[in-house]
């Protein structure tokens, strides 16, 4: 039987950006906080001396093992879902620091339009612009309200950037200047400027110089070693929780971190509608514990946040037949339909593409958000067009050959050696919408190692995905031609979601909003139904924005930390619900 531990003010589940930020802020405020992390107690020295493409990019060393727990996936509501069995098909963060240890670092704020996408779309284009299948929702918070939290996160993380000429003017400079400009980035910027677009250097969670953040954590200037994405930084040069909020939290005696603590239930008192703590298993000993707390913060990956609520029977499960219920509703994510564009092969250019940094790149935002007129377009929203110089390993570079080349044999060898460093890929980071038919629930067949049902994702493309994808590919082809590539190839768009959960951008299911009928949490990520339960992270996105998610997740975590602190004083629902609006 579970051992009951001493009660604390706050228990935080998951120790990535979200859990790390909430823990650090509440520890600083003097609250007693226990952080529970399912994975290992990762340290910087786990990443020193291990620059190894096979191990991290192909065997996914620091991703969550799917051995005991994965998700199942299907396209249609009447289909039997199959489990995602290998990390090649789904890469989830693991261990202390979470997915942010292996993130690349691209840092965009979402746009004012995106936070109020439903009301502003109606205002500009009329209600008919919104397709019937789409659950398009405002976030219940505006860009102006988000800005101070963005600033907080950007300072903590030490983001290196420059003003995007099309973005709202920043009240605060980026904490660090942009990363270096390489020849391939310059080519992209020159070509897009020539086309009348507005290029800029992507803001990066890779330090352009040595930096000390407001909490006193020191980060080092990035060395452009290229082992960034899917790897951990060996140099404290990447903005991640291991270099920032986790050590900040650990500096306080009122914070305790327990690793290999696999939370399996939120303990919930239905009569009082209160969470009383969590139950977890120590994965090293197999022992069960109950950790009571005044406030429970779920700050795990979107899938885990959703599943814990479902397994704990908290909130009303979304049902696509009746379209009622909010838990699992508006599952969305930026993968598969996004990141398509064009590849260019250059006969007379050869770049140092084996060097780089995760977010080293250039972009244009002329086709982001509502920065372009959608009157005659059959989609909503947009995204950035990016060129990135991650720094590519040899296995990865061997994939650069024109599509009329066979994928193996003599001709493959010849062409892949020729184009290894003479190919550039640009893509459109298009917005990803939520639809009534895409949702999360518990699988009826497949179980985890404890016998609990796996989470099931039901996801297919809605009316926005192909039109916006085709638009982005066309624009990328135009830019790649302007860049002077000898061969330009448009990325083929998939007909349907193929169950490859690559890239880590899966969100929603416990979404934020102003209306409890269409959202599970308020703008502090406090549950409408359970005042002392906060569900923090990508699970709160009502739909995806047109950019990488991390800064918005970081900013929302700062907002949630403020909410938890307020709740500990006021002990009530922090936001007045608005029930009249937006039931799509």
């Amino acid at each position, binding site marked *: 039987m579970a051992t009951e531990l001493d009660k604390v003010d706050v228990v935080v589940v998951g120790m990535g950006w979200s859990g790390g930020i909430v823990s650090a802020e509440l520890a600083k405020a003097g609250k007693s906080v226990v952080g529970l992390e399912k994975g290992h107690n990762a340290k910087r020295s786990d990443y020193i001396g291990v620059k190894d493409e096979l191990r991290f990019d192909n*065997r996914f060393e620091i991703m969550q093992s799917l051995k005991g727990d994965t998700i199942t996936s299907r396209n249609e509501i009447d289909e039997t879902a199959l489990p995602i*069995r290998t990390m090649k098909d789904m890469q989830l963060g693991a261990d202390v620091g979470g997915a942010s240890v292996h993130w690349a670092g691209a840092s965009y704020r979402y746009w004012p339009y995106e936070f109020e996408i439903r009301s502003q779309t109606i205002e500009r284009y009329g209600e008919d612009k919104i397709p019937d299948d789409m659950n398009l929702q405002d976030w219940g918070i505006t860009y102006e309200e988000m800005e101070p939290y963005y600033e907080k996160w950007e300072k903590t993380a030490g983001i290196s950037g420059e003003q995007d000429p099309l973005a709202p003017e920043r009240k605060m400079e980026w904490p660090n200047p942009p990363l270096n400009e390489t020849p391939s980035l310059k080519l992209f910027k020159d070509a897009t400027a020539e086309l009348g677009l507005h290029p800029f250097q992507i803001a990066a969670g890779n330090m352009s110089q040595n930096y000390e953040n407001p909490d006193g954590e020191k980060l080092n200037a990035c060395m*452009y070693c290229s082992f960034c994405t899917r790897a951990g930084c060996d140099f404290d040069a990447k903005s991640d929780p291991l270099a920032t909020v986790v050590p900040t939290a650990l500096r306080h005696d009122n914070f305790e971190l327990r690793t290999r603590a696999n939370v399996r239930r939120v303990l919930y008192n239905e009569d009082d509608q209160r969470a009383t703590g969590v139950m977890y298993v120590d994965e090293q000993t197999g022992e069960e514990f109950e950790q009571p707390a005044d406030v429970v913060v779920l700050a795990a990956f979107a899938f885990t946040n959703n599943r814990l609520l479902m397994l704990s029977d908290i909130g009303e499960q979304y049902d696509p037949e009746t379209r009622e219920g909010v838990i699992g509703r508006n599952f969305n994510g930026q993968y598969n339909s996004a990141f398509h564009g064009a590849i260019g092969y250059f006969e007379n250019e050869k770049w140092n593409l084996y060097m780089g940094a995760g977010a080293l790149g250039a972009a244009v935002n002329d086709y982001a958000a509502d920065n372009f007129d959608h009157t005659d377009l059959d989609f909503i929203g947009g995204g950035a067009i990016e060129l990135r110089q991650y720094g590519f390993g*040899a*296995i990865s570079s061997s994939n650069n050959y024109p599509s009329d080349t066979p994928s193996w*044999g*003599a001709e493959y060898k010849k062409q892949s050696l020729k184009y290894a460093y003479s190919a550039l890929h640009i893509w459109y980071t298009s917005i990803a919408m939520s639809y009534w038919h895409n949702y999360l629930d518990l699988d009826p067949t497949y179980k985890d190692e404890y016998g609990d049902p796996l989470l099931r994702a039901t996801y297919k493309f809605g009316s926005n995905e192909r039109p916006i994808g085709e638009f982005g590919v066309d624009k990328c082809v135009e830019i790649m031609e302007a860049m002077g590539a000898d061969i330009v190839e448009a990325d083929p768009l998939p007909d349907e979601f193929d169950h490859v959960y690559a890239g880590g951008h899966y969100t929603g299911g416990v979404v934020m909003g102003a209306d409890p009928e269409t959202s599970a949490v308020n703008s502090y990520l406090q549950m409408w139904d359970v005042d002392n339960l906060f569900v923090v992270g990508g699970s709160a996105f009502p739909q995806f924005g047109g950019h990488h998610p991390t800064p918005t997740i970081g900013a929302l975590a700062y907002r949630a930390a403020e909410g938890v602190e307020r709740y500990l004083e006021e002990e009530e629902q922090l936001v007045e619900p608005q029930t009249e609006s937006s039931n799509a």
Partner: protein
Amino acid sequence: MAGEKDEKVFSRRDFLKTTGVAAGGIAGGALLGGFTGFKFGEDQSEGDSAETDTGGETAGGEGESGQALADARTYISRQEDFAALAAATERIYPEDDNGPGAIELGVPYFIDRQLYGTWGTNGTDYRMGPYRPMSSDTHGRQEKMDRGEMFLMGIRRMMEYAVEEYDDEFVNLDGEQQDEILQAFEADEVEIDGMKSAAFFSLLRSTTIEGVYADPTYGGNRNMEGWKMIQYPGPRMGWMDQITAEEFQEIEPESLRAYQGGGM
């Protein structure tokens, strides 16, 4: 490189034919040892002189270019399975004017070692049933077999298919015939119990390329010849001083052995 011309005269096909005999139990360890190096018998002396030319990290044990690979299998038991695997990898990544092919790069041994470990036994994969290996084209791996079993069953089906279609052992066929067999697997035209032939081919193809370009400590990419061909310099502290350079930087590769520098 000295001896290169002679090496090509002694074709891979002849060599594999000979090892096919070895598999029949005639020859002993010395012949098997000469197998992936493909320079035994009449080419031995030429091979030795080629080796001195390329040098490399021989002291570090990363394999010596052109030399017979002194290595052993720890997963694939049957010599004939290994010979067929080696022949298939060489078709996927053949020797050419740019440099060595999969066999000389040690790729068959790389694959053998991968299959012995966590990856080969699907140690970090979800492995609970029910299994439906054939029911979807888009759900990634769904096979009941682990990767090691998929390799063995795939190779053996390939060998069987060679006899069915060409009335000869896979290793005895010429390159074009071997390619035709691999193409049939790639196009999912061959039946194998429990998996699609395309799934086996995709595994074979990707693992072969990994063996060419992964760090040599894994047993492939011998003497960093894969990296030399693709001009990849290997892991370094960083490229701060070169990151804005206009010209392509040709840098002699170093591997993890050099980067970690021991450290016991």
